[in-house]
């Protein structure tokens, strides 16, 4: 600590300058290459379409996608479909987190309950959730509820297991400390387990947001008249590949955006803890 302080007070040495330059150059190189790959891909795609190396009926092209996207925005369908998918994803995400936090707390609180429920959780977690989707449709009909439940079903069991495992790993001696200070198991949860699990909760959320989106799209494939999942399925059925590809690209941006939001939340937490 002292050494760092004295170093920062002095003039930056030549060796340090070289090091900083090298670091910056590397950083720039990475950024440029990332952009270059995207540009190259788009150019190649567009050129192959224009030169008729590929059939735009099946493969579309960047300009066709762009035109279609602008049309979607102008007629407002972009906002409806994207909005509904985003809404369903966020509600699923929220419910996944609430449910899994409650259930994993209960499992941690009572060893007996967790032992009893373990095999059920394992089965439900390893079951391919898309197999449940038709069942949910029959039970709940084709509406937003079904899609939200589909979104929840994909992530919630894994999330419960993940949180419960994390809670269990808390230092037993810290729990003893709480007992020596006169606390109950519940106090131990609020004072030790929960605060020490914030990083776990955040990383678990990052997994959940991706899975919620997967579940919502599966739901929309099967039981929706609106949303990006519906557009993808509908577009492929009527051979409107522009629609399919545009929807997929919008999905890419949604996934990236949602993940980025959580990344920011994590950074904020690390800074302010």
């Amino acid at each position, binding site marked *: 600590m002292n050494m760092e302080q004295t170093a920062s007070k002095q003039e930056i040495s030549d060796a340090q300058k070289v090091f900083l330059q090298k670091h910056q150059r590397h950083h720039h190189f990475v950024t440029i290459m990332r952009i270059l790959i995207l540009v190259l891909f788009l150019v190649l795609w567009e050129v192959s379409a224009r030169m008729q190396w590929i059939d735009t009926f099946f493969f579309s092209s960047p300009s066709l996608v762009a035109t279609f996207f602008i049309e979607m925005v102008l007629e407002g369908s972009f906002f409806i479909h994207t909005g509904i998918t985003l809404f369903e994803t966020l509600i699923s995400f929220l419910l996944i987190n609430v449910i899994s936090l409650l259930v994993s707390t209960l499992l941690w609180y009572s060893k007996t309950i967790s032992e009893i429920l373990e095999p059920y959780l394992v089965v439900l977690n390893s079951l391919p959730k898309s197999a449940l989707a038709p069942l949910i449709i029959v039970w709940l009909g084709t509406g937003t509820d079904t899609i939200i439940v589909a979104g929840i079903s994909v992530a919630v069991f894994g999330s419960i297991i993940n949180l419960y495992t994390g809670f269990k790993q808390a230092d037993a001696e810290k729990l*003893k*400390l709480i007992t*020596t200070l*006169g606390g109950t198991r519940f106090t131990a949860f609020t004072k030790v387990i929960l*605060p020490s699990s914030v990083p776990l909760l955040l990383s678990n959320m990052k997994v959940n947001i991706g899975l919620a989106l997967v579940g919502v799209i599966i739901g929309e494939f099967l039981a929706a008249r609106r949303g990006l999942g519906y557009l993808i399925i509908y577009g492929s059925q009527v051979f409107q590949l522009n629609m399919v590809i545009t929807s997929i690209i919008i999905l890419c941006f949604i996934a990236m955006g949602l993940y980025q939001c959580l990344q920011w939340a994590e950074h904020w937490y690390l800074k302010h803890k």
Partner: protein
Amino acid sequence: MKEPILQCQNVCFSYHNLTGETSALTNISFQINKGEFVSVVGPSGCGKSTLLSLIAGLNKPESGSIFLTNPENTKIGYMLQQDHLLEWRTIYKNIMLGPEISKTINPESEKQALTLLNDYGLSRFQDKKPGELSGGMKQRAALIRTMMLSPKLLLLDEPFSALDYQTRLMVSADIGRIIRSAGITTVLVTHDLSEAIALSDRILILSKRPATIKKEIAVSLTLPDDSLLAARNAPEFQYYFSILWKEISDEYGTDSL
């Protein structure tokens, strides 16, 4: 003068698991008098910490009894091996954990915390996180957290064993002085024989598992000066050390080396 604060009579305790039971303590009887500093030493794994858990009431003895002379008025403070400060809380918040749990945060307890922080030389660090403190300071913070309960009986479970040797010498002498000046009855579990001699009025030696009390030694040292290491320089120190060493090495036997 000798007014017992705690009495253990024929205490037995075993740990159970599916492969069998492990008897940890058999027929332990002793008493702790008010204001006394008693150390418990014994071969490793003999059940020293188990004894403290029983006294603290975290476990119940299988047979025999442990009773406090004046249970309403004898708050027990328990200090664990590691400091276990919660790293997401500041030192002050860590110290206030006890009152927070017992929902007794009030101007009085806040004042007590500040006084203790000041007495133990930690007031400059009260808003720091545990990670920013040295091992010795963290241990002192852990002691303050225990002291916030205003204990009449203090249980120390190898509280210095996580520290390096030099810090350990300093902190044990330092904490020993603090406890003595506060006149709190203390039971210290340790595997460090010289620490036991330097700090205690009386030493209980446990045998190997299942532990019984093998011997009890009253310690009285002539202190040459009032330095931190005075006790270790006392003329009787070596004498006590060789007694303890003999008793304990007997327990290990020759084949275990």
